[in-house]
């Protein structure tokens, strides 16, 4: 059975293929829903006799999701409607669409919708119900937008998606809340927890959210505006979704939730009022329209209002009345929509001012239309009459609501009857056919409406057929057993008088329909305007935010970041009571003061510099000062590296900055002052942090270990180097990767611009012979020195980095003296190759360990007195990478012309 319920989804896939291949034979697809209808009918009979049953198929229990279905009267009643009307629609659509090229897509969406709708009405798990609910909205979106080349269709589809989607999300929230409050996600089990739920503080929110979902789906005021616009869909879609099934989903939800959430003042009032308002507004607007489908759309709206109102009142009488009305409405409204579609198909218009006298040309269709119309008007012996009868009867007995509602519904019924006649009788009446060349549509177009209309008549004659199914449905809704007994004649009762009154009213309005329309009153603004306004508001806001976000200047971004740091960091600092400074530990020497002074002076000079050269030199000064600090405080490796890197940086800056102009200030003074203040704030913040941290003793956890095991297990005396190539070699590996990538980037940038050649200045070598001789002498010395540094690095200050930098400096010197091309030749291999080899060497040194079954980068040592092992290899790799990187950069930049 579970398979049957989800079978339409599979059918959708099949239909996509089948209808795509054989669009003219698509009517055969109606076979499956027909089967489903029968099966559901059988199940309903069984249920009527022995109560509903539950089926379960797990999906994601941890999230509360499961495919559980409750086959009870209410669900099955709807299911039969869905499958039954669906059968007729598929048949109808096959001819209505003709051999449409997109038929596959159409049927796929239609069947998917059918499956989703069945899921909604049969689902027992509220979260899965939401899944199906949203799917109906989504497939409806696809179907309304079927003729997506038309902007109106797209707009309407989007509108429906958003409005019902929003409601759907409300349902999701309600579902999660309900699951939390009641402890179960099963709707049938929730009913038992009703008292608990109603008493919970979340009741209001839950009920409100559920009603929001129901009202948006069933187009209750104030969410009604999307329904008439949805008429942009092809008529079969309008008939199926927007009159018989999808819009009824909200009504279904209200019915399903009544035993769980209903019968409280809040619920009753909200639902009844909304329903009544919709009923009236819908009926009123229905008779104003001249497009057949819009007339029917508004009348559907009104009918939905009736159903909602009745369910809102919530007595067993009104519930039964609602169910009867539901069935009747499905019959006559579906028929009328299909008739309208047939008329449109044959005449090409839906304008009732142009449509008269069609009965000669389309007799069978006329019969269908007429039968449906009289059912809608509530003529005795039709199911529509039974429905109206039950409604009046129920309202008469509803204390507290009558007579107001009664008056309203009579008025609405009168107008609805008129609407039905306008749609179903008027186009056929009269002798003059304004539209020429009309024929009877093919049988798939008149048979479905005929079946529906005839059904309304036949069942109207013997309504007792429905007793069983409706009892089952009503029981499920009301939560208490309800017995339904319908009959055609109750005797002369006030109800009958009301019905007669209604019919009389219909007759009068038919006669007066001309003057009636001229007195129409359309409100200036409706809720659709609220919707439009909300969207426009959103767009306006986003138009303000958008440009700010994506084309603001970089400086704004930086400003925000820096300000955030200062504000948040400062706040955190100030709010923390334990923040403080310890006593400075280290003494100050004059030497240090001078160096710090140098650094500060350099920084300030960089700030106020007017030429790039002075700025670069100031930066260099700062760098050298920092290097000297390193030297003073026991970091010789660091100092050497810093010196070399700083020199290199200055060199590269000089190579690049020769293209830049002067550095005078561009921003107005006020801006500069502001920036200076912020910068000072940052500086103060950082300074405070440094002072505090520097004066607290750092736990010796790591350094003690390294100090102890560096010389022994690490086989090196220069602990820093041992850390770099052994303990934390992985960091170094990443570091040389960064270097390599940066170098590739620099080279790429320079060469990428090769075709955008601008007049640059090629760096010309310094040709002075003294310089050249000096360079020739220095270079091999430097190279030797670099190797020396490399080799001794493990035990004395030195190492791969510094060595590599010195070696690169040697070649750079050569390049300055003799030009880049000669330097390249002297190097003999390409820098890229050096880089690659270095990386591979580093990698390989790590893999040696893997071959020995140890973790990557574990040091392996050759036996013997001299400590030679993979860390040395690694260092060589680093050396080569550094040389390659630096030279790649320098050569590319120097050649850039």
């Amino acid at each position, binding site marked *: 059975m579970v398979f049957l319920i989800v079978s339409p989804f599979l059918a959708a896939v099949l239909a996509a293929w089948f209808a795509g291949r054989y669009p003219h034979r698509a009517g055969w697809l109606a076979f499956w829903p027909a089967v489903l209808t029968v099966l559901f009918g059988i199940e309903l009979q069984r249920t009527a006799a022995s109560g509903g049953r539950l089926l379960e198929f797990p999906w994601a229990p941890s999230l509360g999701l499961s495919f559980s279905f409750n086959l009870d009267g209410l669900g099955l009643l709807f299911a039969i409607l869905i499958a039954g009307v669906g059968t007729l629609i598929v048949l109808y659509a096959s001819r209505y669409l003709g051999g449409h090229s997109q038929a596959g897509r159409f049927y796929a969406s239609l069947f998917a919708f059918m499956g989703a709708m069945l899921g909604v009405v049969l689902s027992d798990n509220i979260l899965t119900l939401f899944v199906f609910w949203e799917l109906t909205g989504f497939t409806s979106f696809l179907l309304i937008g079927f003729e997506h080349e038309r902007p109106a269709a797209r707009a309407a589809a989007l509108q429906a998606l958003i409005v019902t989607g929003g409601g759907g999300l409300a349902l999701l929230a309600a579902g999660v809340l309900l699951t939390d409050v009641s402890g179960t996600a099963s709707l049938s089990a929730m009913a038992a927890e009703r008292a608990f739920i109603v008493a919970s503080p979340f009741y209001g929110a839950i009920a409100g959210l559920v009603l929001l979902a129901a009202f948006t789906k069933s187009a209750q005021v104030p969410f009604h505006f999307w329904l008439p616009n949805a008429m942009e869909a092809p008529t079969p879609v309008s008939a199926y979704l927007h009159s018989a099934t999808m819009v009824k989903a909200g009504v279904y939800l209200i019915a399903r939730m009544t035993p769980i959430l209903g019968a409280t003042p809040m619920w009753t009032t909200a639902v009844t009022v909304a329903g009544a308002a919709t009923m009236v507004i819908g009926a009123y607007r229905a008779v104003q329209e001249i497009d057949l489908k819009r007339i029917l759309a508004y009348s559907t709206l009104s009918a939905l209002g009736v159903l909602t109102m009745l369910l809102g009142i919530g007595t067993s009488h009104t519930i039964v009345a609602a169910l009867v009305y539901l069935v009747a409405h499905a019959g006559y409204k579906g028929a009328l929509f299909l008739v309208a579609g047939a008329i449109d198909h044959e005449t090409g218009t839906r304008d009732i001012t142009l449509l008269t006298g069609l009965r000669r040309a389309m007799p069978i269709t006329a019969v269908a239309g007429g039968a449906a119309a009289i059912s809608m008007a509530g003529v005795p012996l039709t199911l529509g009459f039974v429905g109206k009868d039950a409604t009046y009867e129920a309202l008469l007995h509803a204390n507290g609501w009558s007579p107001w509602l009664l008056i309203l519904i009579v008025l609405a019924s009168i107008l609805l009857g008129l609407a039905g006649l306008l749609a179903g009788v008027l186009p056929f009446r009269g002798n003059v056919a304004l539209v020429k060349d009309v024929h009877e549509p093919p049988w798939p177009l008149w048979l479905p409406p005929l079946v529906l209309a005839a059904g309304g008549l036949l069942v109207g004659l013997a309504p007792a057929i429905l007793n069983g199914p409706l009892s089952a449905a009503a029981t499920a809704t009301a939560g208490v057993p309800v017995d339904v007994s319908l009959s055609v004649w109750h005797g002369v009762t006030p109800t009958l008088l009301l019905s007669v009154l209604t019919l009389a009213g219909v007759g009068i309005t038919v006669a007066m329909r001309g003057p009636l329309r001229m007195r129409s009153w359309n409100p200036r603004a409706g809720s659709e305007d609220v919707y439009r306004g909300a969207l426009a508001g959103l767009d306006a806001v986003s138009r303000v935010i958008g440009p700010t976000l994506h084309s603001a200047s970089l400086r704004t971004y930086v400003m925000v970041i820096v300000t955030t740091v200062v504000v948040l960091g400062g706040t955190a600092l100030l709010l923390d009571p334990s923040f403080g400074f310890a006593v400075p530990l280290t003494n100050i020497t004059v030497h240090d003061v001078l160096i710090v002074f140098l650094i500060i002076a350099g920084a300030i000079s960089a700030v106020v510099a007017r030429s790039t050269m002075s700025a670069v030199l100031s930066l260099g000064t*700062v760098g050298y000062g920092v290097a000297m600090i390193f030297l003073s405080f026991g970091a010789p490796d660091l100092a050497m590296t810093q010196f070399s890197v700083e020199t290199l940086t200055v060199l590269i800056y000089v190579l690049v900055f020769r293209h830049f102009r002067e550095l005078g200030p561009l921003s107005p003074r006020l801006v500069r002052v502001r920036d200076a203040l912020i910068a000072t704030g940052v500086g103060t913040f950082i300074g405070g942090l440094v002072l505090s941290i520097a004066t607290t003793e750092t736990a010796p956890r790591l350094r003690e270990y390294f100090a102890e095991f560096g010389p022994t297990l690490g086989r090196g005396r220069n602990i820093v180097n041992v850390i770099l190539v052994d303990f934390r070699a992985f960091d170094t590996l990443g570091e040389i990767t960064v270097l390599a990538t940066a170098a590739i980037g620099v080279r790429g940038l320079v060469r990428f611009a090769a075709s955008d050649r601008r007049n640059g200045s090629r760096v010309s070598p310094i040709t002075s012979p003294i310089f050249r001789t000096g360079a020739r002498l220095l270079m091999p010395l430097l190279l030797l020195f670099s190797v020396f540094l490399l080799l001794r690095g493990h035990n004395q200050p030195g190492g791969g980095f510094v060595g590599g930098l010195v070696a690169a400096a040697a070649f750079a010197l050569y390049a300055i003296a003799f030009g880049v091309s000669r330097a390249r030749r002297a190097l003999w291999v390409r820098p890229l190759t050096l880089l690659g080899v270095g990386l591979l060497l580093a990698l390989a040194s790590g893999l040696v360990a893997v071959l020995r079954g140890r973790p990557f980068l574990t040091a392996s040592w050759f036996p013997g007195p001299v400590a030679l092992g993979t860390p040395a290899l690694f260092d060589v790799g680093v050396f080569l990478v550094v040389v390659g990187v630096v030279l790649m950069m320098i050569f590319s930049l120097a050649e850039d012309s």
Partner: protein
Amino acid sequence: MEGLLALASGVLYAAGIYLILRRRLAQLIIGLGLLSNGTNLLIFAAGGLTRARPPVVPDGANALMDRYADPVPQALVLTAIVIGFGLLAFSLVLAHRVHATAGSDDIDDVGRER
């Protein structure tokens, strides 16, 4: 001494940030360089200062004695210096390319279509 270094790093950060906020490409790059130096100084200082006793085990000994400079921040700073150098060199060249493509060294102008 910690105070002096705190002052120095604070000044470097401030100067760096100020330059980054300027409108000229070149100043931004220099600012990044100052910031980088400031950060390195910060890491070095935060780890604790020990005067002139590098973490190098002298010949004959088998472990470091008494007070010695913490090798860990040194290793970290060294890595940071090298990485910083790579990134800064790249940004520099990128700035140059931007300058060449845009024809202006005003950051506010760079993205604007002519």
